[in-house]
């Protein structure tokens, strides 16, 4: 046993499929960017809406799947980003498109004091606690008459702009936000910090003993997720032009995010994408059925959680090894004779 030559070890990150996917992805983005010249305006509006759902879901996935914090209150930051954008646009004369990242930043910043309160709880009670906090946000804004109180107000700052220009710019903004959000999350998770997050998620105490600053990392993830939620919110209300506390801080945002992520597979980076596409399709064709549609969504989420613990995309990954955004590292061991021996290290 001691006479075998040492195996040569290589660390492989990307599969051939994911390289192809990257090229295809870039091509899609380029084609999509040209949409305003050949597509209908309703397509652009729909894209903006689904982009918001997707970004929000991806950030919720980051928080829950990678940060290990399940929140039912991310809509607090969604609405906060939206309201800050609106206030900057209406009252401070800032170009609303520039106000979008500013709203996101504001949401990220407000997450810091919020975390002081929220982090007192953990697990299921953390989830409900974040919901209470979101309700506080909603009730607070509903009592501020300057932004229309309970019935909300309109984004007047875009009034002077021609409709076609506004729609295309909103669309490009949405596209840019999607690409930026995906790139941000992907690069973050592939980095050392991403590995640290996985360690924390798997076993906090062990991670702490390895020198990982658990509390700081959790705060970092919480702030980033809030930033992303705020980005989605600000973008949404630029597209919608009208904001109200009930729309901005509705728990349905989180419900839809949960749905998208659970269907797609939590903790997997392509999960929210798959989930968002399925959600969009269901929304398009079934939302006319109102209550039955929502009921079906709820049932689907329950069934997937009980029977497909990895989500539908996760199931595919398990079964057929599909992976578009590889954050796994595969350990390849080659013996001198040339044969390879693959062992997965998740």
């Amino acid at each position: 046993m001691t006479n075998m030559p040492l195996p040569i070890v290589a660390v492989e990150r990307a599969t051939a499929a994911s390289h192809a996917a990257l090229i295809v992805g870039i091509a899609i983005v380029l084609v999509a960017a040209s949409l305003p010249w050949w597509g209908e305006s309703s397509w652009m509006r729909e894209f903006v809406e689904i982009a918001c759902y997707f970004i929000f879901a991806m950030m919720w996935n980051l928080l829950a799947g990678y940060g290990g914090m399940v929140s039912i209150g991310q809509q607090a930051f969604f609405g906060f980003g939206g309201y800050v954008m609106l206030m900057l646009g209406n009252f401070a004369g800032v170009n609303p498109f520039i106000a979008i990242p500013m709203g996101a930043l504001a949401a990220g910043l407000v997450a810091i004091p919020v975390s002081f309160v929220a982090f007192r709880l953990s697990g299921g009670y953390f989830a409900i606690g974040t919901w209470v906090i979101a309700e506080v946000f909603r009730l607070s804004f509903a009592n501020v008459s300057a932004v229309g109180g309970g019935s909300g107000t309109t984004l007047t700052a875009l009034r002077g702009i021609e409709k076609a220009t506004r729609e295309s710019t909103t669309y490009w903004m949405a596209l840019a936000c999607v690409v930026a959000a995906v790139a941000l999350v992907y690069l973050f998770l592939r980095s050392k910090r991403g590995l640290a997050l996985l360690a924390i998620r798997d076993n906090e105490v062990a991670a702490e003993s390895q020198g990982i600053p658990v509390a700081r990392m959790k705060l970092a993830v919480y702030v980033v997720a809030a930033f992303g939620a705020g980005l989605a919110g600000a973008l949404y209300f630029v597209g919608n032009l009208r904001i109200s506390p009930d729309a901005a801080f509705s728990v349905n945002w989180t419900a839809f995010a949960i749905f998208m992520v659970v269907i797609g597979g939590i903790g997997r980076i392509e999960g929210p994408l798959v989930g968002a596409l399925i959600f969009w399709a269901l929304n398009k064709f079934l939302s006319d059925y109102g209550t039955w549609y929502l009921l079906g969504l709820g049932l689907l989420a329950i069934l997937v959680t009980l029977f497909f613990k990895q989500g539908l995309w996760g199931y595919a990954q398990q079964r057929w090894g599909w992976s578009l955004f590889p954050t796994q590292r595969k350990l390849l061991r080659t013996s001198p004779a040339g044969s390879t021996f693959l062992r997965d290290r998740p």
Partner: protein
Amino acid sequence: MLETIVQGVLLGGLYTLFALGQSLMFGVMRLTNTAQGDFIILGAFAVIAGVSLTGDVAPWLVALAVLPVAFGFGYALQRYVLNGTLGKDPLPSLVVTFGLSIVIQNLLLEPFSADPRAIETGGLNTQGIALGEAMSLGVLPLVVLAIAVIATGALQWLFAHTALGRSFRAVSDDREIAELMGLNAKKVYAFATAIAFVLIAIAGALQGMRTTVSPSDGPLLLLFAFEAVIIGGMGSFWGTLAGAMILGITQQIGFRLDPGWGIWFGHIVFLVVLVLRPQGLFPKTRG
């Protein structure tokens, strides 16, 4: 001011009933039921449906009939659905109960629409007992308070002095060793949820008598239940009652200051307690 506090205490009685089931389920199996409020509303509508289906039989009798149904429903729900979500990860139980919340709300919207309904009590909800000149205590709120105190005492007694209560505490302490002793944890959990659902049904019936209910009322009741449990401190049913009282009083004070800020004030006090004393005001410390 005295009247505000008294009204708050009476409201706290109702909130206690909202919260006891939550406290029980979390205490025994660390399960957070995010559909708690929706099940309460479901209970209320069950009584409403029962009353209209049986041709206006007295609502109290219908409510009593709903209780064993609730027991069986809770047992089956835990045994066949929720037991599969228990474990280290809080996500499955959260998603499943959240999904149930959506299912219940939409299931109720179909037959009942979004209009608020109430359970007719023949004027009981407007009767009052006069206390001196200035104040009058509602009869129904007093009944609610009495039921809340009895329910809390009964739960406490169950936990401390019965074999079932002992098995609840044992599986909650150490499931593996409890099974080593011969307990079937799955069945014990199911019993706990069954009892919690009886409490939920009681709370629903009383809520429907006290005020109107509509299918989407659930989430707010969940938040009240949750706040009562946290303020009171986990691990103690009397603590939950105390937390509910404090929440009720706080909300009444808030309503007094400005009707729009009542619930907001309750939320804020909850958050303050959370920051200053996260273990709650009357926690039972574990060994």
